[in-house]
């Protein structure tokens, strides 16, 4: 039976340290059973920050006055070669949401370059049609990341004013289109702090449950980015503290024992380290959230999508993972020809 909204509220309201420790111990045990003591690694690579959507909280939104960049194929190659040299085998390719600046042909070219360097390729981009996901799958993409941000329609409309992202239903049905297209891994998430936490968590869990039943062959994972809005964000929002964040990770692990849980470099090193094994199974390493930020442009030249709190290099992260008694996993997929399923 799935966790109920009332249970989620109870857990979020419970401040008893013993209760929280109990939750974490259970989450640790389940994570070890189903994932072992392993942590998978990936790194994001921003291809473009052109965006035609107006999401009030985002550093890349179309109203933001910032320099727009888009990598050329040779620049992509340089960035990817750098990351491959760091040992990265799983890449997450990101763009802003702009069909115009980053059409399907551009994305397919990026994937063909990525295939030279990486065994696992995922994308975090604008929601696409099924035929587009199918073409990207056949080109070599194995995973997509798509956050609904909030499942509350009213709130969704308040913070996504224009552009394709304003279309709630289209975004909501993205995982299904991707699954039908053959995509192997789908990462879902909500932006913590945007709306009532318990409601959004419950909706996320319901969404995942529905996808599990309809598309059981997909490997799902969950992400929980915490909202840190840009200057000028005038709508109300709430900060999700570390205690609540840990509870969300544990709760998600208990509710979905075999679903991966991702953690980005948005979070501080100390917290990230503590969460290894209490539910988190996949983390980013050596990240840069600017376009061309690894080798092409200096960080001072542009604005990142979000500020990174964990600036440790890949090597340092690997050392920490091992020190904490986990096996860092770089390779978690071997490229086979993706054909229609």
């Amino acid at each position, binding site marked *: 039976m799935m966790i109920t909204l009332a249970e989620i509220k109870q857990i979020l309201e419970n401040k008893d340290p013993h209760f929280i420790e109990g939750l974490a111990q259970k989450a640790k045990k389940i994570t*070890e059973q189903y994932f072992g*003591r392993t942590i998978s690694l990936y790194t994001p690579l921003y291809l473009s920050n052109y965006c035609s959507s107006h999401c009030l909280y985002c550093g890349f939104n179309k109203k933001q006055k910032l320099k727009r960049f888009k990598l050329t194929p040779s620049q992509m190659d340089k960035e990817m070669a750098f990351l491959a040299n760091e040992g990265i085998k799983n890449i997450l390719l990101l763009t802003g949401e702009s069909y115009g600046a980053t059409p399907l042909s551009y994305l397919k070219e990026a994937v063909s370059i990525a295939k030279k360097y990486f065994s696992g390729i995922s994308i975090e981009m604008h929601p696409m049609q099924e035929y587009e996901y199918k073409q990207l799958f056949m080109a070599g993409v194995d995973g997509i990341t798509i956050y609904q941000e909030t499942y509350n329609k009213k709130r969704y409309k308040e913070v996504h004013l224009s552009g394709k992202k304003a279309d709630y239903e289209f975004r909501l049905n993205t995982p299904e289109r991707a699954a039908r297209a053959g995509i192997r891994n789908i990462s879902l998430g909500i932006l913590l702090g945007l709306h009532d936490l318990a409601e959004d968590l419950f909706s996320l869990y319901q969404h995942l449950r529905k996808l599990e039943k309809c598309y059981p062959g997909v490997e799902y994972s969950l992400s929980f980015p915490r909202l840190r809005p840009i200057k000028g964000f005038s709508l109300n929002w709430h900060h999700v503290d570390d205690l609540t964040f840990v509870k969300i990770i544990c709760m998600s692990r208990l509710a979905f024992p075999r679903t991966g849980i991702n953690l980005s470099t948005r979070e501080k090193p100390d917290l990230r380290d503590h969460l290894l094994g209490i539910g988190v199974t996949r983390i980013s390493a050596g990240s840069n959230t600017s376009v061309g930020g690894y080798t092409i442009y200096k960080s001072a030249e542009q604005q990142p999508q979000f500020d990174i709190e964990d600036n440790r290099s890949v090597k340092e992260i690997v050392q920490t993972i091992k020190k904490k008694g986990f096996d860092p996993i*770089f390779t978690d997929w071997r490229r086979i020809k993706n*054909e229609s*399923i």
Partner: protein
Amino acid sequence: MAMETIYKQKDDMLIIAGKKFSNRLLIGTGKFKHKPEVTKSIKASGAEIVTVALRRIDEQINEENILEYIPKGITLLTNTSGARNAQEAVRIARLARECGCGNWVKIEVINDSKYLLPDNVETIKATELLVSEGFVVLPYMFPDIYTARALVKAGAATVMPLGSLIGSMQGLRLKEAIRIIINEIDVPVIVDAGIGSPSQAAEAMEMGADAILVNTAIATADNPAAMAEAFSLAITAGRIAYLNHAPEAILTAKASSPLTGFLFEQENKTKE
């Protein structure tokens, strides 16, 4: 006083595809916290067959390669973890062979990320295709006698029914279905998945299983090598018990035969 063992493993070898093995524990190499523990577990237990997921083997061998931690002489069984259908399993198996991992393959076709249950239909198809390409195929399956028969007919070297869900460590939840397979199928039956303790492994062996594959319970133990040794000992204990089980009751003459004694009453009276 030292034990004087009666059971001689050399007289009771596990034979798979014509190859003989003296140890009936197979070890899965995923989930370990440190790769050197894989080596220690293999050595401590005497296991002679290990499984490796091809998806975890770096083709460029830049990162720590699990293959380097598997001692020479061990039979490598590459598994097709990640395959969602027969075609993907075949592609992964071929890739494994091209990479020098040999032609022994454990087919895992799982289109179910919630429970990780194998797709028996696709497993049969994959077995047929891979056997025809010269692979030694050990298919992971949900225990169902029809599937087991079809796999044998397709040329599988063994069948590998799951005991319970991968990682659950719940033991032989599917005991009776497995028992039917053990009784009716003549290729080795290797119970795989869900075996969480040495006693559960012994239970499966007492029932007549030919071998046991264990991953989670060893890899996540505080001392994986010690746990691997415990499993090996338990499997041997279960095997000895199976080989020496008392004959079934129906074959034993009973002192009284209340249901059929009447058939022999006249004969007994004549003798008197």
